[in-house]
């Protein structure tokens, strides 16, 4: 049996596991199951090993609970007690729900983070395979620079990468009650909708916290909520037995405060906008304000009530979106944050306001031209530009006699010029020209280096890229050790140098042999060798200097 020091939190009889009857025990730190009549536990798992639990849906005949471990294993328990199966299963589930979060190890979170990073970045994954799996450097060194800070505020970091999901304005309308058949309505509430309601109407959330679970169950609370007139269109002020009538009063207060605060945008006069026009195209006329409520018709007042409801709802949704996950505990700050104006007033600090005013009142086209003042360029030796940065070339001087001779000759030759296109060149000249232009001819030398990426097969190119990435990573670690100030860096330098040597042995040499076997004469690894050699030279220099300092 279990050790006596373990506290047993729950015992469930008649639980089958792998078609065997037995009893399920939930302890302080683990969950265990033993078959009927036996003393030992055949199945026992720490809560820390369990990733999550699953239950079978309500309609199924078999009432089951499944545990998924971190290793991927699944263990299923079948609650076989006819009368109390569902209750037992639910009790076990609730207890597990409370216990599992306590035992989630932080180390597993780290593993998950590492897995996530490796999955998201294929280059990183390849580097990991090249370096750690082949034992060139150890896993800790690999992750040393990359994780940093995962342990501390991982949840916050993770959240910062994700965007906050806003509230849909139509969440209340989306609830869409269905008729139950016999004069009742069925509302489907999901956790999302509940969250939206709480975020938008903090008053409702407060009511919930006050009443559930002391006075009402969750189901009763929501039933009352939907029944109350608070929820329905026409909010007539009902008697005070409705717990939501307070909420209605609070909403009225909130709305009034919003209206009083008004819009803080100095460039916009909201009160001047009006719906009453004289006629089309004739502008706005402000009607006589009727202050007595009795003058309004019933239709007008119900319309205005609905419009007020809508405005209030929209304002609350916007305000909830701008609160950004802060938890509001005091009621005092409720009304102040319910106005979406706060962002607007922030926008109108003096410099921003000035910029906006300028934008609205000035036209760039009509400003005078303000060209920056320039200094004129005065060149003393402008003849230098005539020849430009061209080196002196030996000029062949022609004597005037030469010139005269040449010109006369050309006169003579070209005065009777007739194109003779059938005798342009001899065939020997042509064939020697063709020979010079064919591949291998005197004019075609030096074309080979351009085609190197076509001559090397793609898989070798891929391998070379991986080699470069891995070598780069190792060299980065190595060169970051210099200048060597601390004993930690000294150790690291020595270790990195041995890593580089190991990399050269295990990865670079086989690759070189491979390409030699394929008769590729190009030197693909020359640069890599140079980089490694530079690292070795630096190491030797550092070592000799260290020796000299010690002696």
């Amino acid at each position, binding site marked *: 049996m279990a050790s006596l020091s373990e506290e047993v939190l729950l015992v469930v009889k008649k639980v089958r596991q792998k078609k065997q009857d037995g009893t399920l025990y939930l302890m302080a730190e683990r969950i265990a199951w033993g078959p009927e009549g036996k003393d030992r536990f055949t199945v026992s798992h720490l809560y820390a090993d369990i990733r999550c639990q699953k239950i079978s849906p309500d309609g199924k005949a078999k009432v089951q609970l499944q545990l998924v471990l971190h290793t991927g294993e699944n263990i299923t328990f079948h609650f076989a007690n006819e009368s109390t199966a569902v209750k037992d299963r639910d009790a076990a589930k609730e207890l597990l729900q409370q216990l599992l979060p306590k035992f989630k190890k932080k180390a597993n979170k780290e593993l998950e983070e590492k897995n996530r990073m490796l999955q998201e970045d294929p280059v990183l994954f390849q580097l990991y395979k090249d370096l750690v799996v082949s034992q060139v450097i150890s896993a800790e060194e690999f992750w040393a620079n990359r994780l940093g800070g995962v342990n501390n505020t991982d949840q916050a970091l993770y959240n910062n990468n994700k965007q906050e999901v806003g509230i849909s304005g139509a969440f209340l309308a989306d609830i869409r009650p269905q008729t139950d058949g016999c004069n009742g309505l069925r509302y489907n509430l999901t956790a999302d909708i509940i969250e939206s309601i709480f975020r938008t109407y903090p008053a409702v959330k407060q009511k919930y916290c006050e009443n559930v679970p002391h006075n009402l169950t969750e189901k009763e609370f929501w039933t009352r909520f939907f029944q109350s007139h608070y929820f329905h269109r026409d909010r007539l002020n009902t008697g005070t037995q409705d717990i939501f009538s307070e909420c209605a009063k609070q909403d009225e207060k909130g709305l009034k405060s919003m209206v009083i605060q008004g819009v803080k945008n100095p460039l916009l006069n909201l009160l001047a906008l009006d719906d009453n026009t004289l006629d089309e195209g004739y502008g706005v006329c402000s009607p006589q304000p009727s202050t007595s409520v009795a003058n309004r018709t019933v239709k007008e007042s119900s319309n205005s009530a609905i419009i007020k409801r809508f405005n209030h709802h929209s304002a609350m949704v916007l305000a909830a979106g701008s609160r950004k996950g802060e938890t509001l505990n005091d009621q005092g700050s409720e009304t102040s944050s319910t106005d979406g104006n706060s962002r607007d007033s922030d926008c109108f600090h003096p410099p921003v306001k000035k910029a906006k005013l300028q934008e609205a009142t000035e036209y760039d086209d009509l400003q005078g031209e303000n060209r920056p003042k320039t200094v004129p360029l005065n060149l003393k030796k402008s003849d230098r530009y005539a020849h430009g*940065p*061209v080196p*002196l070339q030996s000029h062949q001087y022609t004597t005037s006699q030469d010139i005269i001779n*040449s010109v006369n*000759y050309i006169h003579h030759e070209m005065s009777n*010029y007739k194109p003779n296109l059938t005798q*342009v060149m001899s065939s020997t000249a042509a064939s*020697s020209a063709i020979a010079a232009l064919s591949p291998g001819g005197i004019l075609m030398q030096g074309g080979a280096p351009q085609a190197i990426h076509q001559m090397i097969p793609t898989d070798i190119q891929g391998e070379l890229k991986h080699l470069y990435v891995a070598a780069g990573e190792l060299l980065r670690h190595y060169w970051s050790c210099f200048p060597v100030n601390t004993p930690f860096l000294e150790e690291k330098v020595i270790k990195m140098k041995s890593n580089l040597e190991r990399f050269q042995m295990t990865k670079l040499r086989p690759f070189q042999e491979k390409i030699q076997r394929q008769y590729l004469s190009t030197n693909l690894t020359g640069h890599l060798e140079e980089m490694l050699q530079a690292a070795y030279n630096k190491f030797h220099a550092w070592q000799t200097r260290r020796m000299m300092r010690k002696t």
Partner: protein
Amino acid sequence: MASDTDVSLLVIVVDVNPIWWGQQAHREPEFTLAKCLDAVMVLGNSHLAMTRSNKLAVIASHCQDSYFLYPTKKSADNGGDESSSGDGKYELLSATNNQMAEEIREILSKTEVRGNSTDTLLAASLAKALCYIHRVSKELEVGQEMKSRILVIKAAEDCALQYMNFMNGIFAAQKQNILIDACVLASDSGLLQQACDITGGLYLKLPQKVALAQYLLWVFLADSEQRSQLVLPPTAHVDYRAACFCHRNLIEIGYVCSVCLSIFCTFSPICTTCETAFKIQLRQMVKPKKKKLKQQM
């Protein structure tokens, strides 16, 4: 994909410097200016024969001016009366050849003897070619696209005074996506090497001048899209080093004045071209500290 109506314009700039060619006649009698012009005509005819929508222009670069050999104003006026030659040649080709021959005869017969300018005006011819290309591109029909390139056949040596204009022309060609190819007969030209490298053309120095036609047809007849399918001589390394303004030596690292952009090999506190004064912080020379050796007993 080139459609049937896409125009490919080839502008050939031939260096007909009479002084160089006159001397060449004495050096190598089997390759004279006549032969060179024949080879150019062969290339021009081949280009026109490749596709009906191909266009050709030939510019002769002289030391006094640069002239259009084809198309000329006279050809537009006459309408080609004397274009029928007896051998059944395609009329466009024979018209082209006749015009070119007539023009070159006229130009060279009018050459005067002048001593002060013996250099070929290559930069000017390049500029003329660019302007012609620009004009033709404006005269295209709606929806037609034009690809143009310039082939420079160079005989005489580079003239350093044309450097600025030449570079301007090269960059203008690069902006307009016009290739500049170069076929050099005698001495290597650094300017043309740069031009070919910048615009993406081919540079070729002929080992044999006699076979000029063969080289032209092999290397320079195809346009830029077709060149990627052919095996052509590889591009050589271009020496882009600049020469300093003070000594005219090629330098790899130098000092450039930020006001006038003139290049110097050593630092001087005043730029000699624009007389701007500069201050530069030289690194303080750190004397190596002598380490005190501890006496260990």
